[in-house]
């Protein structure tokens, strides 16, 4: 119990980062890369924070639902034209989208510009975060092995072949983009009510890189992989902070460097992520 109290913040961020990594996984699971999730997260965070600040009486569950719904609605007009095209086009359009969302919040007086919103009441508890994560995992786990799940895998393997099989590729890809947006928004809403504040700087491009690193490092072949990756990469920098400082690194660049290097190593040498490690080791021992 002491351990839980001492590291409550860390546990909370493992949960929030897990949700975010799952939001990236949602689109990756059908072979699409969405880099807009920091933007979706920002939309969710601001939506939730504004509701709580302006009408404190609204139940927290409704606030979180709104935080998830808003980016999901925005994702439809963003995804619809782009998802008809090749894989890279979603990545390109979403890089731009994430940046524009950030700029809107920087320039918008209603949300207090670059300073953002502060003094948001802390309504998120540790169990709220982990409950949300469990629900998300349950949904994504149920998707596996279902009709839609097989369709997504087919799209990831070969989109042209999938569409000749009569799978509605655009609809499936859009569904996963919307689901990813909702998860990112939910995580944003949870985080805003945990850290007391939202500011545009927290949703810069680096944030979506973090999510992607966690999803890919954990492994996108299994639905729980991203959560493993999020836990690993949230805890690791804390453990290595001392070592990094002794080598003369400042904490910010050190974490960034670690993220980049680990991502590169995993994508090159362990394409299915950490969760595939046990099986690979076993196979090697047998060989």
């Amino acid at each position: 119990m002491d351990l839980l109290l001492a590291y409550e913040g860390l546990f909370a961020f493992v949960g929030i980062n897990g949700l975010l990594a799952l939001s990236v996984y949602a689109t990756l699971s059908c072979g699409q890369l969405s880099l807009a999730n920091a933007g979706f997260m920002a939309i969710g965070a601001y939506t939730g924070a504004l509701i709580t600040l302006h009408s404190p009486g609204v139940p927290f569950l409704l606030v979180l639902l709104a935080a998830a719904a808003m980016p999901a609605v925005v994702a439809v007009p963003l995804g619809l034209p782009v998802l008809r095209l090749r894989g890279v086009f979603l990545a390109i359009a979403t890089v731009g989208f994430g940046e524009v969302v950030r700029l809107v919040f920087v320039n918008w007086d209603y949300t207090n510009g670059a300073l953002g919103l502060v003094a948001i009441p802390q309504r998120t508890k540790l169990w709220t975060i982990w409950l949300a994560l469990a629900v998300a995992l349950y949904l994504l786990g149920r998707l596996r092995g279902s009709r839609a799940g097989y369709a997504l895998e087919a799209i990831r393997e070969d989109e042209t072949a999938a569409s000749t099989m009569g799978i509605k590729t655009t609809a499936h890809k859009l569904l996963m983009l919307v689901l990813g947006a909702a998860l990112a928004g939910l995580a944003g809403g949870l985080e805003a009510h945990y850290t007391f504040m939202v500011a545009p700087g927290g949703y810069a491009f680096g944030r979506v890189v973090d999510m992607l690193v966690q999803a890919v490092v954990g492994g996108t072949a299994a639905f729980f992989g991203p959560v493993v990756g999020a836990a690993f990469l949230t805890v690791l920098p804390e453990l290595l902070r001392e070592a990094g400082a002794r080598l003369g690194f400042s904490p910010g660049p050190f974490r960034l460097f670690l993220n980049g290097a680990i991502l590169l190593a995993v994508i090159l040498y362990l394409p299915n992520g950490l969760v595939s490690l046990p099986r690979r080791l076993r196979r090697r021992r047998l060989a």
Partner: protein
Amino acid sequence: MGQQILNGVFVGSIYALFAVGYTLVFGVLDILNLAHQAVFMLSAFAALLLVSDAHLSLWAALPLAVVFGGLVGIALERLAFRPLRGRADSNISGLISSLAMATVFEAIALQIFGPDTSRFPQDTFPDRMIRIAGASASLLQLCIVGISVVLMALLTFLLARTRLGRQIRAVAESPRAARVLGIDIDRTIAMAFFLSSALGGAAGVLFGLAFNSISPDVGRSVELKGLAVIILGGMGSVPGAVIAGFALGIVEVFTVAHLGSSFRDAVSFAVLFLVLVARPRGLLGPAAAREA
């Protein structure tokens, strides 16, 4: 009016130079190199170091920084792209590995130079204004436009007329056929990366000079513009990127003049999105954009 067009051409020349390298690699590998903006940033810092610490003149530092950018490009290809070649999902995994390299580069710059803005020394370039047809421009701006245009012309010549250019175009067309014809694919791709990154690096140095501010995240905003330019020009089309670069520069300057500077970056996104909706192949891109 004339003044605004002049400013637009000036900004546009940097966008075009940046995007030409972007699109060159996409044309050859069919992979978006998201580390291009990091090469841009590193080269700008390299030039800054050469000028302020090694006390070189700008005219010596510029080519050195450009070559440095090219070498970073070769390293990038070796580390992040070559190992993935032949993998089925190289489209997405290449994107991700280039993003990983961009993160590493940014971390290195952040560690060495810190998060704040660095500037070139005061006397790096003579501060002189010149009047052309009622509009005024600084000597620096004219030099930047001149250098960009010369570099892009050199690239066009190289692609059209030299042996290396023919090899690059052959690999872009079909790697398999190129291999059958005896072209060393790995070497050709490495050279394409060298050229692409050298041009990206040149754009970085010129951008650093033009706005006299370099920071580890300086490539981010240019990246968005570069993406808009290659989409508008047509993925993989070098002449398309040149035209689109100047066009975006001019549109951006007019938008800032009429709607305010907070719309500057929204222009790129609007252009990007409209092209993707209305004409995904861009101005001069190949027609097949719906393949999987």
